[in-house]
Structure formats: structure tokens, C-alpha cells
């Protein structure tokens, strides 16, 4: 069997991913600024959803409060930029790193429990972080958050932010793909399918799951950093559990057994929130109807459905 990365990706997938990437590269040349902004927001959200799917779709872990790590990454970056005079790159490293440390701490307790108990403990520990951020006025700005965070000088225009976010997110997605295709990723998927059997073939399941959580939370932290780069503010809502639910829905909607499904889910939800949210604040009503239809007609998610159709036509 030939070695190398090129053979890892099915040819069709490689072509469509490349095509989408190049299309996205030229979009800002003619699209209005508002759409460039929405696309950037979709990239950030897509990275967040993809990081969650790493543990929930491919790892089978009930990671129910993933937004906590997104928020921690965003706050770490925001605090470094506003409260210290450290160079910007420290913030870019501190975001994912802080999120990963938090992932390690919370994950260490969570992997000792199974399934729903894992999820419940995570919601409580994540909400604890939210409560601290929400109350600690002196340090985090409490429920006001932190506003007017300066952008690094090399990101002076919204197009530059767009390209920067696109590049970082693309890089992160490639790394995630390679991780999923590595022995670690394959073993993780085996754990999702059957943890008991995995233990019996000599895999330290808990340690493996913890490693997956740390990796996923660091990507979530990176998404948090990119959110601050784009929006220039942080608020405690970034760590609130409703956001965790929202990204969970993105994974479900896009298809959580596919690689790129969550990207599609993120795009759909952000678009829905932006364009339907303009007319009514009850846009979640439409989301609810879509979810019901999804569960009945496309249980594998939108991406999962299309992959199956294309497989049949081959």
C-alpha cells in the first residue's frame, strides 16, 4: 500500500475541498463587506463545531459543554491583549493552551464517568467556569464582558481578517483530518464503536479519551481566539451552555459521522440566525422545525445523506 498524505483523501473529496477553498479565496474581491463578515463568522463557528465533532462524532464522548472551552480561549486571548503588554503571538498561543489545560482538568474527572454522567458532570463543571467569568467583574468584566479589544496591526481591514481566519481554520481542519487518519484517530473511532472491546485489545481507553478531549478543546480555544479577532469583544455568553447545545445541533445537522459535516451544519445555522433572525427573533422556531424534519428524514445529517447518495450513484 503506498504511503504518503496524498493517498489519504478520496480524490473527489480532495477536488471539492480544493475547489471550495479557491472559491473562498476570491469571494472578498466582489462580495459586499457584510457577506465577508458572515463568511468569516461561519469559518470561526465551523472550527468550533469541527472541534466538538472530534470528540462527540468520532470519539463518542458526551461532550455537552464544549462552548466553555471556546469561551476560555476567547477570554485568555482578550485578557492578554487588554491587561498585559505581551506581544500578540503570546495571545494566539495562550488561547488554545488555556483551553487545553481546562480541557485536561475537566476531562480528567469526566472520563471516569460513562456516557450521560460524563455529559452531566461536564455541564456542571463548564457552568462553574461560566459563573466565575460572569461574576468576576474585576478580572473578566463580569456580565459586561470586555469590549473594544484591539486588533493586531497586520489585521487592519475586514478582508485581511477574512483571509487570516480562512487560513488558520483551513490549517486546523487539515491537522484534524490527519489526526483522524492517524493510529490515534482510528483507535478513537474504535473506542466510540466499542470501548469494552478496545480495553480488551490493550488500549488504555480513559487516557485515549482524555487525549482526544485535550486536542479538541485546544481547537475550540483557537476558535475562541479567532472569534475575538473578528468581533473584538468577549461576553460570558460565549461560555453559556445554550451555545454548547447550538454547536451540538450543528454537528447533528451536518452529519457527525462525516468529516466535514459540522462545517455545513455551522454554515446552515449561522446563515439561518443571520437571515431569518433579521425578520424575527423566533428564528429558533424554524430551527426546531428543521431539526424535527432532520431526525425523521435525514438521521445521518445533511452531509451524511449526500455522501450516501453519491456512493450509491457510483
Amino acid at each position: 500500500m503506498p504511503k504518503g498524505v496524498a493517498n489519504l483523501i478520496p480524490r473527489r473529496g480532495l477536488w471539492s475541498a480544493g475547489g471550495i477553498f479557491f472559491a473562498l479565496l476570491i469571494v472578498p474581491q466582489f462580495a459586499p463587506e457584510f457577506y465577508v463578515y458572515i463568511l468569516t463568522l461561519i469559518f470561526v463557528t465551523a472550527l468550533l463545531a469541527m472541534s466538538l465533532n472530534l470528540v462527540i462524532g468520532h470519539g463518542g464522548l458526551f461532550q455537552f459543554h464544549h462552548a466553555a472551552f471556546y469561551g476560555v480561549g476567547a477570554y485568555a486571548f482578550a485578557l492578554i491583549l487588554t491587561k498585559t503588554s505581551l506581544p500578540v503571538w503570546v495571545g494566539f498561543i495562550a488561547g488554545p493552551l488555556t483551553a487545553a489545560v481546562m480541557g485536561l482538568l475537566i476531562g480528567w474527572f469526566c472520563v471516569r464517568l460513562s456516557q450521560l454522567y460524563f455529559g452531566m458532570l461536564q455541564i456542571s463543571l463548564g457552568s462553574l467556569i461560566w459563573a466565575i467569568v460572569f461574576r468576576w467583574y474585576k478580572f473578566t468584566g463580569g456580565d459586561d464582558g470586555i469590549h473594544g479589544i484591539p486588533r493586531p496591526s497586520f489585521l487592519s481591514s475586514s478582508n485581511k481578517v477574512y483571509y487570516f481566519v480562512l487560513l488558520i481554520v483551513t490549517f486546523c481542519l487539515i491537522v484534524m483530518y490527519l489526526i483522524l487518519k492517524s493510529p490515534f484517530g482510528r483507535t478513537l473511532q474504535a473506542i466510540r464503536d466499542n470501548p469494552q472491546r478496545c480495553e480488551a485489545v490493550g488500549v488504555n481507553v480513559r487516557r485515549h479519551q482524555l487525549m482526544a478531549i485535550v486536542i479538541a478543546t485546544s481547537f475550540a480555544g483557537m476558535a475562541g481566539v479567532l472569534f475575538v479577532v473578528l468581533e473584538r469583544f468577549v461576553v460570558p455568553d460565549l461560555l453559556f451552555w445554550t451555545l454548547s447545545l447550538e454547536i451540538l445541533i450543528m454537528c447533528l445537522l451536518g452529519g457527525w459521522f462525516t468529516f466535514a459535516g459540522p462545517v455545513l451544519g455551522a454554515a446552515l445555522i449561522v446563515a439561518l440566525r443571520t437571515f431569518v433572525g433579521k425578520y424575527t427573533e423566533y428564528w429558533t422556531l424554524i430551527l426546531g422545525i428543521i431539526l424535527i424534519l432532520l431526525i425523521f428524514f435525514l438521521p445521518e445529517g445533511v452531509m451524511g445523506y449526500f455522501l450516501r447518495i453519491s456512493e450509491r450513484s457510483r
Partner: protein
Amino acid sequence: MLQVEAVYKSFGDFTAVYGAHLTVERGELVAVIGPNGAGKTTLFNLITGQLKPDKGKILFKGEEINGLPPYEICKKGIGRSFQIVNIFPRLTVFENVQVAVLAQQRKSSNLFFPAQSLAVEETSHILESVGLSDKAASIAGSLSHGDQKILEIAIALGNDPELLILDEPTAGMSPEETAATIKLVRQLAETRGLTILFCEHDMDVVFDIAQSIMVMHHGQTLIQGKPEEVRKDKRVQEAYLGSVELAEGR
């Protein structure tokens, strides 16, 4: 090679294993038999660490292994298959076995190398030896029951075990599949020099291939000995009263 000494295990008020003894010598094919609910599967789970014994000792190559987690016991050289099909249903047949081989090679945590080029030879070799090569790319969950049971054994071989424990390898199989599986088990024992411990309901199979038989009843060991000794034993005949094939002998 393996010694189980006076092992006890209870679940609440129910005592599943009540003083079990078992000796497995290197290179032997040892069968554990007993009526339903005799505690055979519980005994296997105690040996491979899925359960921890309340009392007693389990020695593997002279080293005490009771109470160790399953993945540690596996690394010491004990592989197993399960009575109920226990595979990775969403992975391909190849990946099912590869996961075990990667674990055996201590590569499970490797993040920086494409898995598709690792452990390929070993995995292909195992699939070939159990006759699943042509199904390597199929999704494991879509295989027939018989093939899934064979895949069970293949996964266990992925760990390159010295002692292979098979919990009812032919459960739910047709007579033809059973015969093929037994032939395979015997072949594996010979070509790989494996020591095999198994339990099985089909007495013809047991008396045909086992070199030593341990009989369990109500969680206790009645006797362990050569097939002829076991067949003659009064207590065994009582435990199996009504079980014609054993009482009449062959």
C-alpha cells in the same frame, strides 16, 4: 502458563464463581464446560480483567494478574474473543484488526503518521489466516453473524497473544460454520503455537479437540482432567443428567 486458584466472585447475593480452579499448560487446548449459568463467562471475565475477583489468585506465567485493568492484562499476552459479537461495527474489517495490531505495537497514541500505512502486513496476514481477506474493505457491521464471530477471533489475534481465550466461538453458528471454525481454531493452535482456552456448548466439539477439560457447576470446579477422565466422572454425569451426548460417550 495460567493458574486460577480458588477464585470467588459474587454479584450482590448471587455468587457466580465459587471457588474455581483451572490450570492451562503452554501449548494446550483447554476447554471449560458446564451447564448454562455455571459461571464460565464470568470466569473468563475475571481472567481477562473485565471483572475483579473478590477472592483468590490468578497467575499468568507465574505473575499475579488479578485486579489489573483489561488493557494491562492484554499487554501481558492474553487475547480474547467474546461470546456476544463484540466488534467495531462502523469500521472496516481491516480496521477492526488493525486497531488491535496497533495497540500491540504500542502505536495507538501516534498522532503524526497516516494509519493506513501502518501495521498493514501483520493485519493482512491475520485476515488471510482466518479467511477474511476478500472482505477486508467491508464495514464490519454488515458481515454475516458467522463472519463477525470469525472477525472476533481475528481481532484477538491482532494482539499476538500467547494465550487465546475464546468464549463460545461457535455460538449461533450453523453446523457447517461450526465445523469450519473449529478447524480454524485447531489450525491456529498448530501454526501459531498458541495456547487456547475456550468454552463451548457443543460436546462433540469439546471432546474432539480439547486436550484438557475443566467442568464447572454452580460456579465451582468439579474436575479438570483429560477427556476420558472427565467422561467417566460420576459428578460430571450428575451435573449433566439428561444430557445424552455426554452420558453415552462416543
